């Protein structure tokens, strides 16, 4: 099992970043458990031919941008058995966009969440994170907004999120 602390910032996209289609990208299929939880913290993920189980918890109770991730690699069979259970799923394409020495993870959601694009940056230190300035292709910092967490988004539609997104003047992007 591996454990990491992530220092991250999350933004709603203002526009599709230029050159995104040329960036390295992967389809991510997530299933969150339990389905009944408003904000599920346990996830299985398929990324290409790799599968993992992740428990994500807030490392700092006052800051959703500091997340502890515990990961276990799964076999295809283990993934299939767990995915057959009662979870809530989402699928997105993650693009890895180079940006000023960092990598923006641009998540383009599919299916019922199509139109939603969330951009995340991860940082090596709090100093770098605190000094970071939001790029032009981002609309609003939503790091502390629970509604953009994967464990909340899974199983929802774009229409479900519309009231929260409109508070940030977000418009669907395709």
């Amino acid at each position, binding site marked *: 099992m591996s454990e990491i602390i992530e220092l991250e910032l999350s933004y709603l996209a203002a526009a599709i970043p230029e050159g995104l289609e040329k960036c390295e990208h992967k389809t991510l*299929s997530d299933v969150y458990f339990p*389905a009944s939880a408003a904000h599920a913290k346990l996830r299985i993920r*398929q990324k290409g031919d790799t*599968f993992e189980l992740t428990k994500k918890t807030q490392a700092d109770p006052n800051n959703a941008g500091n997340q502890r991730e515990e990961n276990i690699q799964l076999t*295809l*069979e283990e*993934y*299939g*058995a767990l*995915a*057959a*259970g*009662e*979870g*809530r*799923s*989402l*699928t997105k394409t993650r693009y890895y966009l180079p940006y000023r020495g960092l990598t923006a993870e641009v998540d383009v959601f*599919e*299916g*019922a969440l*199509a139109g939603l694009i969330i951009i995340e940056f991860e940082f090596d230190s709090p100093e770098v994170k605190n000094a970071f300035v939001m790029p032009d292709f981002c609309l609003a910092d939503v790091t502390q907004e629970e509604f953009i967490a994967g464990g909340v988004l899974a*199983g929802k539609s774009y229409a479900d999120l519309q009231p929260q997104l409109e508070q940030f003047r977000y418009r669907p992007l395709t």
Partner: protein
Amino acid sequence: MTKIAIIEDDQAISQMYRFKFEAENYQVETAENGKLGLQLVESFKPDIILLDLMMPEMSGDQMLTEMRKTSWGKNIKVVILTNRGEQEIPPAVKTLGVEAVILKADMTPRQVAELVKTKLGIN
């Protein structure tokens, strides 16, 4: 025992549905493209097929077109699995007698299993 064939090139999705339907006491067989799917369906004679559209070798819509020309495949119930939007489904698919089109990302295995039961009239 009710028989279901899962024709899907994504092994994770295929495994997921295999576990779900085996837990519901179905006899399950899988194939990873339309070409192998045709061979499987002819020999296995399933009551219903979960059929992916985008697959290598032979796509789901090609397989469906070929299967509907046969005596053994013209009446088998088919549920389409896709990640495409409704508007991107090949028009031929809708004219070949499918029971339902499922957006994979939007339905849980339990919901798919319930839909299959409904289509088979075993609810």
